[in-house]
């Protein structure tokens, strides 16, 4: 809608409470509101995709104090004076994949993340679906990258030794009369949008493939190119491969300020010293807008949207083997995902996520209602689904802008900046393709850089003994007896694998760090049996007392030191 019409609408609806101005392709909405959902609807109504303007939210939220970005407690000068060619801010799937692609070049790369590991926010808190793009129309950046990203997964996951399966996705319908409409819809997707893998299958065929689905499904769209991956596993693998190729990753490192002179970032302040990079890549997830602001290049706004997923016991894994969701008549409603069901690469069923707007970027708390909501919906897909099989649940916060599309471009006012921002679903799917484009932009921006001769795209992960034949397993144990000592009984993980992870290119010696790399603690006992053992192995490997081992962040203390006169056995 054009500006005049928008102003009129806002006046009609809200009186003079909100004003909107437009300059240089940016619509800025101002005012004050105590209702976060009101702010979302005001800003959303300002979106004008036709003219490609971005919406910036300057409405003051008075409903509750908005928490400041959580900062690591670490303070040192480890990075002071560093002059990397490229500084990547954010260690999610975007930042890590960009670091890896850029590590082909003979340049200094520094990736910083404020958390204690990679993939600690959205990239570690999603369902891991590699989307087929069936819901995307031509014209958006999401659509531009989806096919390329999706098709790259086989190769990328092979190079990085990350489990990936193309298990296919079913979008299921209960109403037979919708079939002609959906047939036209998929044909349009194929002919106009290039999403060419979809086929319609009958209810009978669906029943044959997924016998535990709702018997009243009359037909389904089948997208064979859909798949799933372990999202944090892939992020860590990208990061490790970047480190193998010379990139530096500094965790517990937060960007708190920038100095911009003549449209150029000259220095970046962190809790570990001041960095003077040639160029900066903003891949800061929910904080990308804050980074853009520091860089004097804010032209989009992020409205956090949280979602909760539940993970089921592997015993319930036989319920289904693919990805599925039930669809009613709500195709245009692109971002209110009711979630779905997905059988992960590790054989657990994952249910969710829901979608709730929030002003809190880092509140990962779960809520009873989210689980009830998701299960209520998903029992429509697989009636035998039950909350009793839940072993854990988690919340992630997505980073959409009001346009609900990615921002992947060079800085508009700041010349040595690249934005890889507003990445939400299907950002995991598109990441491999986006990283290649950002690599191009960065190389162009740097000018005169050479490719490395010895770039190694192959990352070998820690061997997964539980998936091996007895002969392979025996051979490995003969080489290293630690592989024969099982520490995590639920997921069958050995001491040797844990020590390998501690010796990996990006060592994160915390209980959660090991958990994300290998899965001890992700099984049905949730670490009840193995967490003391894992803690002890970390302490021994690092040469520190048990009380100095952390769950994740620096303050996530596990024990408070020796008991009265206690000597450990």
């Amino acid at each position, binding site marked *: 809608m054009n500006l005049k019409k928008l102003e009129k609408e806002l006046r009609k609806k809200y009186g003079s409470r909100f004003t909107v101005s437009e300059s240089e392709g940016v619509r800025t909405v101002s005012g004050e509101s105590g209702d976060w959902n009101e702010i979302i609807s005001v800003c959303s109504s300002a979106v004008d995709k036709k003219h490609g303007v971005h919406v910036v939210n300057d409405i003051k939220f008075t409903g509750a104090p908005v928490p400041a970005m959580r900062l690591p407690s670490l303070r040192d000068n480890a990075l002071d004076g560093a002059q990397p060619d490229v500084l990547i801010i954010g260690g999610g799937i975007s930042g890590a994949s960009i670091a890896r692609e850029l590590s082909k070049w003979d340049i200094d790369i520094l990736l910083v993340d404020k958390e204690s590991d990679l993939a600690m926010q959205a990239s570690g808190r999603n369902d891991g679906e590699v989307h087929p793009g069936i819901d995307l129309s031509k014209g958006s950046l999401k659509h531009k990258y989806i096919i390329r990203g999706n098709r790259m997964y086989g190769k990328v996951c092979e190079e990085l030794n990350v489990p990936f399966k193309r298990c296919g996705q079913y979008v299921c319908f209960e109403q037979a009369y919708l079939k002609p409409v959906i047939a036209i819809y998929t044909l349009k997707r194929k002919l106009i949008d290039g999403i060419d893998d979809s086929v319609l299958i009958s209810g009978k065929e669906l029943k044959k493939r997924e016998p535990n689905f709702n018997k009243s499904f009359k037909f389904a769209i089948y997208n064979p190119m859909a798949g799933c991956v372990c999202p944090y596993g892939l992020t860590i693998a990208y990061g490790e491969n970047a480190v193998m190729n010379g990139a530096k990753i500094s965790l517990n490192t937060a960007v708190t300020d920038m100095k911009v002179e003549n449209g150029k970032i000259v220095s970046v302040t962190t809790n570990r010293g001041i960095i003077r990079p040639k160029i900066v890549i903003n891949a800061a997830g929910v904080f990308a807008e804050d980074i853009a602001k520091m860089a004097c290049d804010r032209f989009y706004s992020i409205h956090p949207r949280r979602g909760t997923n539940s993970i089921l016991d592997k015993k319930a894994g036989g319920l289904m083997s693919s990805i599925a969701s039930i669809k009613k008549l709500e195709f245009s409603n692109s971002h209110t995902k009711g979630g779905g069901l997905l059988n992960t690469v590790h054989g657990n069923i994952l249910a969710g996520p829901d979608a709730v707007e929030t002003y809190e970027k880092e509140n990962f708390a779960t809520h009873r209602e989210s689980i009830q909501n998701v299960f209520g919906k998903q029992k429509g897909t697989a009636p035998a689904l039950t909350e009793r099989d839940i072993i854990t649940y988690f919340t992630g916060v997505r980073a959409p802008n009001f346009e609900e599309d990615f921002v992947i471009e060079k800085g508009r006012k700041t010349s040595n900046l690249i934005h890889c921002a507003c990445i939400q679903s299907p950002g995991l799917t598109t990441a491999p393709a986006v990283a290649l484009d950002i690599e191009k932009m960065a190389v162009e921006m740097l000018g005169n850089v050479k490719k490395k001769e010895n770039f190694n795209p192959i990352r070998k992960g820690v061997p997964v003994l539980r998936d091996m034949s007895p002969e392979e397993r025996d051979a490995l144990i003969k080489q290293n007896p630690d592989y024969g000592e099982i520490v995590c009984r639920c997921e069958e993980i050995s001491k040797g694998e844990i020590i390998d992870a501690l010796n990996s290119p990006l060592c994160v010696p915390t209980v959660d760090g090991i958990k994300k790399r290998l899965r001890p603690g992700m099984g049905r006992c949730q670490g009840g049996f193995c967490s003391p053992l894992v803690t002890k192995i970390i302490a021994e490997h690092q040469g520190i007392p048990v009380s100095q081992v952390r769950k994740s962040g620096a303050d*996530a203390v596990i024990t408070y030191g020796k008991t009265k006169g206690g000597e*450990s056995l």
Partner: protein
Amino acid sequence: MKYDAAVIGGGPAGLAAAIEAHKNGAKVILIEREARLGGILKQCIHDGFGLVRFGKKLSGPEYAEIFIDEFEKENIESLLLTFVTGIKKTGDGFEISFVNRSGADKIESNTIILATGCRERTAKQVSIHGTRPSGVFTAGTAQNFTNLLGELPVKKCVILGSGDIGLIMARRLTLEGAQVLGVYEAKPTPSGLTRNIHQCLHDYDIPLYLSHTVTKVFGDDRLTAVEISRVDEKMQPIPGTETIVECDGLILSVGLIPENELAESLGVKLDPATKGPSCDGSLMTGIEGVFSCGNALHVNDLVDYVSESGEQAGRAAAHYSAAKRNYISLKAENGLLYMVPQRLDLEADNSAVTVYFRSREELGKCTLKIKCGEKTIVEKKYQFMRPPEMERLTVDFSGADGDITAEIEVTEK
């Protein structure tokens, strides 16, 4: 070489089973996941073990030691620090695959005795929401940190659930100088043994709050507080009753689940009431040659009975031979939570069958009635019955010729 009996698990049930099978002439091997025998008893340094069996109060390690000494004296074979990766039925027995520091290997055995114990229910299984900080432990994990690693897991904590391990840990942590703010129990009655309520809570002035539960945890890194809610008679939190308690630890003692993943992989059917295998009078599961005992069979509250069931299974495995069975069911009905065993073989000697059972709720004067059709087999009066306190009885079933039912008749609520 083929064994007569392979015992999986070297805790009290497995040790007793192995010793008894060996004494009955079987060639036995015991496989234990950890480096040392004794199972969970290793970390149970409090006393109270062995009152029934030995007539004295022993600590967990002392109790285990009696069996370990005998096991070693009898020179029974064992594989320690060995993890069973799978069990397969073969033509006339079982093939057990395992890994240990020497490699991946397998053995064969005519029978299997599953003595795999149980695991603890977790925070997410009792629907606790909020963040995921450190400082949330199951009671057994906290006990491991405290007693085996010698590390203090909390300084100021709340305990959810009045199961025995929770009560024991309330006392243990208090003795270590931690502050235990209270024990919260969602049920209207305590879940642990009466003696533990007295010895672990009352003696240390630790309050017990019934019909309360933890609904939320707070803290981004370490736990900073928990939200407590009152619950209704269906144990659902009542909105508006929330209070916040500041603490750095939450210890969960919210139930134990028999570990039967290996059993299930063999096709063993579980009893939904016990979550352990449904067994006959010799503690043989629904799969010929596979026996179950201890906490894998059903959660016990006294180790003495864990050993007893281990011995029963060990004896039965030693004398096992494939035979035609003529099963009748033993059903726990009115007033009973469960009864083990769940069936009897009419071809077997049923003159002295040990049955274990629990009532569904706290009862005053009541009568246990076991009947076969119209025929009364047992009629026994009790002064009271409480679900946390398992009952045990030896019954002569030799007169039974059809399905059996057991029920409780209440004379006084």
